[in-house]
């Protein structure tokens, strides 16, 4: 059963690696933020599934942190683009 979790984690990492193209070649900064946001979602899922594969519950909190704070970063970037610093 655990090899299924490892396969899911590796596939999520591969999908995130696919998004490096948009992160490098995005014409505007919003494209890069969108790609980074999606990559962090995939990374959170990959960490969750890797913790289920390895049986280490300590990685679950890293996954929760990634899933919550990456969006906070996106919102802060949007606010900065709209109104400048503060």
């Amino acid at each position: 059963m655990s090899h299924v979790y490892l396969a899911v984690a590796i596939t999520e990492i591969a999908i995130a690696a696919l998004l490096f193209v948009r992160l490098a070649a995005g014409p505007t900064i919003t494209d890069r933020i969108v790609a980074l946001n999606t990559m962090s979602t995939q990374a959170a899922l990959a960490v969750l599934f890797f913790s289920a594969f390895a049986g280490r519950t300590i990685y679950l909190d890293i996954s929760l942190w990634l899933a919550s704070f990456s969006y906070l970063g996106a919102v802060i970037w949007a606010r900065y683009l709209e109104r400048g610093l503060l």
Partner: protein
Amino acid sequence: MRDAIVIALAAIGLAFSLSGAVGILRMPDVYSRIQCSSKTITMGALPVLIALVVGMGPISSYGSRALLVAVLLLIVNPVASHALARAAYKTGVPMWRGAVVDQVRQQAEAGSGEADGPGRP
């Protein structure tokens, strides 16, 4: 039986995630990419998380964390996508030339829209 359900849900979620990533790579402008990033990636993440809940049980620490991540994604992903789209529009990122409607600009030209107006170049 449970393994088959887990594999099927994970395959559905990974297929949706892959299509979302390809959409982010291939779509013509920022707003279409934000659409791919919000809807398709959320739809790709939820079946994968449900697969973990089915595989590990909802009371286990893995299943409960997966449910928590699912709730976080459902709440916070639309907020971030809306903020990014609004910031892109305000900073004047041009739409694709094949776009057919711009309702914010139409409302501003009709005089009933936002006071600060659109930022299109």
